[in-house]
């Protein structure tokens, strides 16, 4: 198969080694030499946060053969370096979508209403670990975990409470759920159905990106192949039944949080995307039937220009992959639409107000990078889930950026910067190198089975930690500019009353519901799981009968087995 993504002419031409003009060489020889002798630079080498070397100066010599039509394009035109929309934020500001969820569905519902009232424009749900891992609140492994990292949802009844009073036909909802994504999505669809919303009209996103679970977030349940089957089932179901839904949010955020470099984040994410496309194509779908609804999710870390370059490179690479590797004809299939979250792992427990500054800069990177949707972390990120006060400030950060900074007044304001265009090209080239490596390993599932991306990420994380401990990288307030005094902040606490409340509700539900119907639907799910039928309709039937997340996942555990990752040495 013609992979079509080989770096080839266009990427390497413009990013080949620089060829300084004679005027520049004279300047280096005379002016610069004298300046450096008088006042040496602060470091021997300057690199991005991820370790990419950065020159003192970028000039036209750094973009030999740069062709605006080929390497840049216009906004909303291939290769989309400048953004996927013609007017970008002049037409519509990015969606302000704060990832939220804690304690009971009632508590989270209240927070969602609050954030909408404060001006957020999209919903994003964080589920607790038992839910994420496919356990009900009363499972032994759920002890101590209920409602701590997100909202506890065991059944459709919890989803109804969670979304009470929210206008699901008018607002989009993103749900960070992976292994049980089919179940949680089915619950959302059932809630929408009960509220009279039309599935053809509702829009939102389910994260549903299982590959990155094996690589980074580690919320897997089943082994890779049956898990991919579930993802494919949701994508094909969505394409036919819920056409405005984004059935997958192919994610780099978690890969970066696990310690990867920016290039690894980009490359592993997009290569995961390639893997998903290949798997869905094997089902016999035409690429243009589903590709327009694939979406992405990136991290926005501290190094401003590295992050902007990464976003622009992402659009260029994905467009090329879709058009050339997969032959997609519909231009909407070429679009890398993405959500961004500012980097949680960059935020510190020490001097937490410094985090407001970090988040602001990271949000700026995402906006200058052309994100469609944005979550900004709260200052208490390193301590707990956000208090109302902290999340409000995080939302205000986006609003100030949108309405006061002026960066939204023009599309892709930094295009043409010698530095940024050079960095974008270098990022692209490095990404294609990773594609080649992973293709050579047999694809992403094979690479995961060999532990390749996991090892790359760990090595990068270890190197970064060592750099911090050697003060080669500074973290303000942590390894430099430390304060002897601690000024504790108020943090959100979640106690075991949440678990008791949820367990009681679940017990009552189990008594009230038609258990014969539950059994029948679960059995049907189990049978279908052993065939290659699409499981979504079966999951929907289970959900409508008020089967629980745990019950449905247990059925699939029996059929698919469970996954244990290879030992770390």
């Amino acid at each position: 198969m013609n992979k079509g993504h080989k770096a080839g002419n266009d990427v390497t031409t413009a990013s080949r080694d620089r060829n300084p003009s004679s005027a520049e060489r004279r300047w280096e020889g005379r002016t610069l030499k004298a300046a450096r002798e008088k006042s040496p630079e602060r470091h021997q080498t300057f690199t991005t946060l991820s370790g990419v070397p950065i020159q003192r100066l970028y000039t036209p010599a750094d973009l030999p053969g740069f062709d605006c039509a080929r390497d840049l394009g216009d906004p909303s035109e291939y290769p989309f370096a400048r953004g996927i929309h013609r007017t970008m934020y002049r037409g519509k500001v990015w969606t302000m979508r704060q990832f939220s969820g804690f304690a009971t569905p009632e508590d989270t519902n209240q927070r969602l209403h609050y954030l909408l009232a404060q001006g957020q424009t999209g919903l994003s749900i964080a589920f607790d670990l038992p839910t994420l891992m496919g356990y009900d609140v009363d499972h032994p492994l759920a002890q101590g975990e209920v409602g701590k990292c997100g909202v506890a949802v065991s059944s459709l009844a919890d989803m109804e409470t969670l979304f009470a009073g929210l206008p699901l036909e008018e607002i989009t909802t993103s749900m960070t759920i992976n292994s049980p994504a089919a179940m949680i999505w089915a619950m959302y669809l059932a809630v929408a159905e009960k509220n009279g919303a039309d599935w053809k009209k509702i829009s939102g996103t389910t994260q549903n990106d299982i590959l990155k679970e094996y690589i980074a977030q580690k919320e897997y349940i089943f082994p890779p192949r049956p898990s991919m089957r579930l993802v494919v089932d949701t994508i094909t179901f969505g394409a036919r039944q819920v056409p405005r839904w984004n059935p997958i949010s192919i994610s780099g955020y978690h890969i970066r949080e696990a310690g990867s470099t920016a290039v690894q984040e980009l490359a592993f994410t997009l290569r995961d995307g390639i893997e998903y496309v290949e798997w869905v194509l094997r089902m016999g779908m035409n690429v243009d039937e589903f590709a327009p609804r694939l979406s992405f999710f990136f991290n926005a870390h501290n190094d401003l220009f590295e992050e902007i370059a990464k976003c622009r490179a992402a659009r260029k690479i994905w467009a090329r992959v879709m058009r050339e590797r997969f032959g997609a004809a519909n231009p909407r299939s070429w679009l890398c639409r993405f959500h961004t979250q500012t980097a949680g792992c960059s935020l510190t427990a020490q001097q937490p107000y410094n985090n407001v500054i970090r988040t602001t800069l990271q949000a700026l990177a995402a906006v200058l990078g052309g994100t469609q949707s944005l979550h900004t972390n709260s200052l208490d990120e390193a301590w707990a889930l956000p208090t109302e006060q902290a999340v409000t400030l995080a939302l205000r950060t986006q609003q100030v950026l949108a309405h006061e900074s002026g960066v939204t007044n023009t599309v892709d304001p930094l295009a043409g910067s010698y530095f940024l265009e050079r960095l974008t090209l270098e990022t692209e080239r490095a990404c294609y190198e990773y594609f080649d490596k992973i293709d050579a390993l047999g694809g992403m599932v094979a690479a995961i089975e060999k532990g390749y991306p996991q090892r790359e990420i760990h090595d990068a994380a270890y190197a970064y930690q060592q750099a911090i401990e050697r003060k080669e990288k500074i973290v303000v307030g942590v390894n430099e500019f430390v304060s002897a005094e601690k000024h504790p902040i108020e943090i959100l606490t979640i106690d075991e009353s949440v678990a008791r409340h949820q367990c009681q509700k679940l017990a009552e539900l189990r008594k009230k519901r038609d258990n014969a119907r539950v059994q029948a639907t679960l059995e049907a799910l189990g049978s279908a799981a052993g065939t290659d039928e699409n499981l979504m309709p079966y999951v929907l039937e289970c959900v409508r009968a008020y089967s629980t997340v745990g019950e449905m996942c247990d059925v699939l555990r029996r059929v698919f087995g469970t996954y244990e990752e290879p030992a770390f040495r």
Partner: protein
Amino acid sequence: MIAVPDRRIRVLVAKPGLDGHDRGAKIVARALRDAGMEVIYTGLRQTPEQIVNAALQEDVDAIGISILSGAHNTILPRISELMRAQGLDEVLLVVGGIIPDVDIPGLKQGGVSEVFQPGATTQEIVAYIRGHVEAAKKGEV
């Protein structure tokens, strides 16, 4: 007095509960190995029973628990209780992760020796474990 050959410090690094964030645990495991210790990393989703059994079987000097999920007030007391039941009171128990200040006194009273919050360095952790394990060994002899 019988001369006992020096053996390397043995540490069990464990991820209890459902929390899958293993960036820190793997970094600590590697740093301890680089510092000459023998490290057994349990991997994810360990129950307190599995952790304490592993500690017993591996005859470790220290257990390092990594937990970021907020379940520490349930899981750590259970680990301490099982350690006592299995006669592992002398084994050093340290914790790293997201642990609010207010929970630290309770954990220490329950048997946790030290809590390493975000910002702690691998060097601190290595030094702490080495220092405390060596002191405990000298105490025995």
